[in-house]
């Protein structure tokens, strides 16, 4: 199990849980439901936001918020 904030670009995984209820509400309605597959596509310089590919679009969240998102890693096929 990993935090989204710590994943390298290109890493694939599945969302396990989001540990902050307020953040969870916002991300859930954007389609970040548990079990949904994600891929880290970008990281902004200087510890800025992280961009992920989720249900076929790119979403960016702040690094502090990404620390609260648990990811189950997927092996590359």
């Amino acid at each position, binding site marked *: 199990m990993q935090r989204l904030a710590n994943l390298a670009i290109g890493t694939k995984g599945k969302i396990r849980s989001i540990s902050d209820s307020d953040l969870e*509400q916002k991300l859930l309605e954007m389609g970040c439901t548990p079990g949904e597959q994600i891929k880290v596509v970008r990281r902004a310089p200087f510890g800025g936001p992280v961009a992920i590919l989720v249900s076929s679009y790119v979403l960016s969240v702040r690094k502090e918020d990404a620390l609260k998102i648990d990811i189950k890693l997927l092996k590359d096929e």
Partner: protein
Amino acid sequence: MSKEQIKIALAGNPNSGKTTLFNAFTGLKQKVGNYPGITVEKKSGKAKLSGEYNAEIIDLPGTYSLFPKSMDEQVAQQVLCNNTDEDYPDVTIVIADATNLRRSIFLLTQVIDLNMNVVLALNMVDIATKKGILINVNLLSEELGIQVIAINARKGNGIESLKEAIIKTIDEKPKKLFLDVNKIFKKVIEKANEIRGVENNYASFLALCRQKLSGEVLNRCALNQLCKQYEIIPERIQAKETVKRYKVIDKVIFSCVKKEALAGKYQFTKKLDDLLIHPFFGYIIFLSVLFLLFQAVFSWSAYPMELIDSLFTDLSIWTANAMPKGMLNDLVVNGILAGLGGIFIFVPQIAFLFAFIAFLEDTGYMARVSFITDKLLRGVGLNGRSIIPLLSGAACAVPAIMSARTISSWKERLITIMVTPLMSCSARLPVYALIISMVIPTDEFLGFNLQGLVMMAFYLLGFLAAIGVASLMKFIIKSKERSYYIMEMPSYKIPDWKTVIYTIVEKVKIFLFDAGKIIIAISIILWALSSFAPGKKFEKIEQEWIGKTDAEMHIAADKLEASYAGIIGKTIEPAIKPLGFDWKIGISLITSFAAREVFVGTMSTIYSVGDDNIQSIQERLKNVKNQETGEAFFTPSVGISLMLFYAFAMQCMSTLAIVYRETKDWKWPVIQFLYMGVLAYLSSFIAYQMLS
């Protein structure tokens, strides 16, 4: 034949093509107003559906769900969930991006469960097909129990079929619920229905989730009681429901959508992002884009501005001659026309700025800029999205402040609005230019022109002051609202020129009508202050100068001194003396409140200079002697002090008017006026005392 008028609400995610569809429906027959009591903008327009039906279309703010997070989104929920709302639609169109179906039909399924008459406009099906996403539209329509129309809002494809579908939907509810909340939460929903006195399971569910529905205040207590009784935590049931809803959506998508391998389109976005979000080149490119934007707003708009200026001058001269001489003539020419000229002169800058911003936004570049600057700006209480207002402030604070609307956190948006006027705008330029040419020698410093360096230093000073004040306000302004940065990064696309044009028209209209009213009022007050004097002083002045050389010029100067504005100037003289200013500068400071560039004109009137030629004003001002010492009045210390005052003081009623309009509270423009005044006074005081 009388036509039937129906109400249509247009809802959808941001970036789904909602605005484009709205424009396609209504053309330029749009109206921008406000929802009662709140600052959220309400856009509506009229459209012809058929020979029998006309429609009023309300463009709801973009939202991802009916769980609102900002004031904008709350409006969407309020209109859709409350059938007593005056905007409650007969038919709702939900627009969804076909390339992103899963997320974009979430909102639609909520609207279906509210049992509203709804049509799905599936936008960009052609692009989805190119990307290898094949959607079975008929099957989707069957699964959802509503009409689904494939459209391309930009090309205008499918609009006619959409209109037909709307007419059919006027008395057609969805065939089935998408997700029956009653099955998940059973008794609680029924009880909530009883409390609210309505039979709408989903509306009652939203009410239970503590979503502020209008008119729900009375039921609040009873609903809270209900939650306690059944041990319900509103956040938890909302999360549970969202997850269930997405499970059903995934099932529908599984049966209706076939995916093939991604084609080249996505690769294009990826390659462009490699460059535009690059840790080094990303910032370089951004700075270049800014430079171009700054150039455009600053220099390209100079020509139309000159044209508007000369048009108003001609109009003033013509009116002055055409109307009988007297008070009314003076009011129309020097009060109303001068005020109108002061408003219209900003139109080119506003148009250019918003053309650029709409263009950058429509391409998807803006989302990238805030992505790479969010971290840097957050340190000082701002947001990644604050960068555009701040930098456009270097051209003109008025459009810059209007562009702060994209910042969703109220605190970050407010700080942006409060500090943007510290950026040195183009109206300060003539003031700086005049003073610098008087007090700064034309020497070279390290091989650069010293005058140019001083000018640059003042621009930099404005930026640093904005950053400094922002970091202070970060601690002062209290907000319970947590700041988020959850943003979609849309694929790049070629901007739609129609959207760009509509944006320009809309922003210019807002400026002319909303800020314009206030500017005219203040212009008339300023005119009155400088055109009237207590007693019969004016008559005496006229008699005194009659028949003498340059009489007109001297009369104007003496009259200004005797007028109420002159009296105010003399009254404030003791207060501004420590800054090195006399009562004449005092009058200029007051008249500058109409707009900073008025300074040059007032100085020229007051020092009896016949024309507005900068060269001659400059020569004349250089010869002004200090009455106490007999030396030149405009020393470098007076000049620097005066420039600092202009750099920091809030002397722009257009800006104050727009700040009021954007915050809907006089508190903020007043605070802004005061803090900038204090900052200006202190820095001028320190500079003058140290330098002289």
